[in-house]
């Protein structure tokens, strides 16, 4: 063993201990049920560690390359944020659900939008028929945004919004609403998903061709870097890539590659890496294979940190930290024996916690059937609270660090991701691969391969191809949404359109088109101005469509 290695280890440990001293500790009991005191971290010690190897590959928590976690004391300091994704019906309906969740101990909000909103259509558009408020909340204008957050203090509650194709328009509604509430934009905390690359690859909810879409994303990154220090402009999302059928290593590699692509575009825009990178965040899936998932999360932090420092020249440690939200795997749930889904979700959540997630959504047991009922949502939230309060898992940082198995899997994840990065580069980079349908084919192949393994009985799903119940009980109660709700929302949008100052709306849309035509200008200010005139989502996305055109994927499968 080298003495240099010993010294590096000792310095790293000292720096970590100092960082922990400066961090706060949450008010909780950190003893085992048997009364044993627990250290907040277990690590090899200078004698046992192969010095350089430990500090380079793992490091202490809160230290490069962050394999063991992004913060020095992780959940000893603060638990992950329990953030349940919710939205349905009209803005007023969802507003009630948010207040319910906040009253039951949820600590952040996460907005699910309905399909028309996700595709940039107003509720009264012909293509919206039957879909208004069904799998999320309908937001067609600033007026809806005002109702959505009525009575919710936006300076205190962080809000995550799952919106991509029309992300900058919805973001403009959000900012405009906060400012009307008297909360200035620099105080707003939250996230817009705004990850258009994975839309082309997996979720397939895009509006414009890839190149102008990348410009819109870069506009929001630049806007936030300059005006909204607490806002995460992009949440680079592997969740949907995985749900679409990718493997864990594809999820890891595609997501990080997308992240690096946003970084490269922002750098080309002339932004300093440390001016925007601290606010990039990620969103991963936590699937069934317990240890593979944990390894994926740990590898994500290590790969990201190395690239951000070594390839993009980040200096601020926060620019190198891969901070992420996790959601348990919707696609792992089954319609038969839905109660089993509580158990699947619980161990997926546990994997995310052992992987060091910053926030977590746990799926409800009835999500293969419909939007979750209030009771199902509560069980899902309780699952996180049980893990946080009773399992003892959050007492010790990265408790699986140093496991021969988990470290080997983490290394293998990293190698697998690097191999995929090389293939993406060979094929011309992420945007080119999107345009060529390369990601879509890779995901399609993986998804079909896995499905065949289940069909062949090589893999088991309880309740589907083993332990099948002959008798099925009565279907569980599901949340039903009425046509009356849709009619009400459609009427409200129509009424808004008749009440606004039509001249001002028209002028604001014209200004937006002008800005959009000039790639050197940022579209966000024009969008916020138009939002304040109550220009609708459909009008704003149409104005951008006039300039950018549309995009359709190829019909291969």
């Amino acid at each position, binding site marked *: 063993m080298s003495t240099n290695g010993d010294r590096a280890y000792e310095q790293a440990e000292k720096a970590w201990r100092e960082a922990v001293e400066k961090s706060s500790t949450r008010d909780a009991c950190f003893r085992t049920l048997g009364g044993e005191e627990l250290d907040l971290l277990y690590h090899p010690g200078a004698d046992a560690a192969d010095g350089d190897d430990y500090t380079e590959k793992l490091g202490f928590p809160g230290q490069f390359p962050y394999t063991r976690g992004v913060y020095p004391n992780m959940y000893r300091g603060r638990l992950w944020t329990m953030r349940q994704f919710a939205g349905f019906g009209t803005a007023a309906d969802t507003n009630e659900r948010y207040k319910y969740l906040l009253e039951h101990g949820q600590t952040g909000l996460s907005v699910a939008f309905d*399909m028309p909103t996700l595709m940039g259509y107003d509720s009264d558009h012909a293509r919206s*028929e039957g*879909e208004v408020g069904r799998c999320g909340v309908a937001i067609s204008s600033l007026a809806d945004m005002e109702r959505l957050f009525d009575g919710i203090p936006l300076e205190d509650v962080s809000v995550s919004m799952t919106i991509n194709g029309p992300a900058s328009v919805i973001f403009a509604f959000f900012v405009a609403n906060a400012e009307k509430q008297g909360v200035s934009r620099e105080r707003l905390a939250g996230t817009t998903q705004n990850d258009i690359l994975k839309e082309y690859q997996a979720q*397939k*909810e895009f509006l414009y061709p890839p190149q102008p879409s990348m410009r819109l994303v870069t506009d929001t990154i630049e806007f936030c870097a300059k005006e909204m220090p607490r806002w995460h402009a992009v949440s680079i999302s592997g969740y949907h890539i995985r749900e*679409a059928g990718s493997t864990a290593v594809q999820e890891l590699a595609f997501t990080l590659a997308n992240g690096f692509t946003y970084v490269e575009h922002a750098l080309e825009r002339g932004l300093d890496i440390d001016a925007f990178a601290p606010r990039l965040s990620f969103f991963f899936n936590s699937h069934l294979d317990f240890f593979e998932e944990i390894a994926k999360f740990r590898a994500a932090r290590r790969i990201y940190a190395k690239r951000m420092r070594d390839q993009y020249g980040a200096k601020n440690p926060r620019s190198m930290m891969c901070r992420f939200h996790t959601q348990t795997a919707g696609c792992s749930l089954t319609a038969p024996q839905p109660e089993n889904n509580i158990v699947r979700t619980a161990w997926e959540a546990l994997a995310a916690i052992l992987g060091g997630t910053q926030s977590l959504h746990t799926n409800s047991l009835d999500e293969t059937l419909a*939007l979750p009922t209030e009771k199902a949502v509560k069980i899902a939230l309780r699952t996180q609270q049980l893990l946080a309060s009773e399992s003892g898992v959050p007492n010790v940082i990265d408790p699986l660090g140093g496991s021969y198995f988990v470290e080997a899997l983490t290394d293998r994840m990293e190698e697998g991701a690097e191999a995929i990065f090389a293939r993406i580069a060979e094929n011309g980079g992420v945007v080119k691969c999107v345009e060529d349908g390369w990601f879509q084919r890779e995901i399609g192949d993986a998804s079909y391969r896995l499905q065949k393994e289940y069909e062949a009985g090589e893999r088991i799903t309880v309740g*589907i191809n083993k332990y099948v119940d002959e008798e099925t009980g009565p279907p569980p109660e599901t949340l039903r949404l009425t046509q009356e709700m849709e009619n009400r929302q459609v009427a409200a949008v129509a009424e808004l359109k008749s009440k606004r100052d039509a001249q001002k709306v028209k002028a604001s849309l014209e200004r937006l088109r002008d800005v959009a035509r000039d790639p050197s200008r940022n579209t966000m200010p024009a969008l916020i101005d138009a939002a304040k005139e109550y220009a609708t989502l459909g009008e704003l996305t149409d104005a951008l469509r006039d300039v950018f055109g549309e995009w359709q994927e190829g019909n291969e499968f």
Partner: protein
Amino acid sequence: MSERPIRVLVSKCGLDGHDRGVRVIARALTDGGMEVIYGGLQQTPEMVAEIAVQEDVDAVGLSVHSAAHMTLFPKVKRLLDEAGASHVLLTGGGIIPDDDAQKLLDLGVGKLFGPGAPLEDIVTYVRDEVGKRRSSDAP
């Protein structure tokens, strides 16, 4: 009557982009010896019915994950009937509660498959159901 391969149009209807199921099923039907036309994403009921008639398909498989199934399936069924294509099997799947699936069955829509349905069951169902319809159409 010479047996031409079964022709199936599979498509997403409605606005959502959850195309994992529809793509896997397109591949499974192809592996099952059928000719598959992939209609792709976000088709309107009108476009689906039009392609079904133009391509002279035996079956249409619609995938709906946006909770708009009670609007979309009946509309496609009606348009197919109006276009003189009531012999075409309209089936599909997605996130569809059992009682809604029963209501749709009562309207003349075929069986609907939920998450986890075995591919083999779907392929067999399409083959058998189209077979029945072909033999009842035969002179």
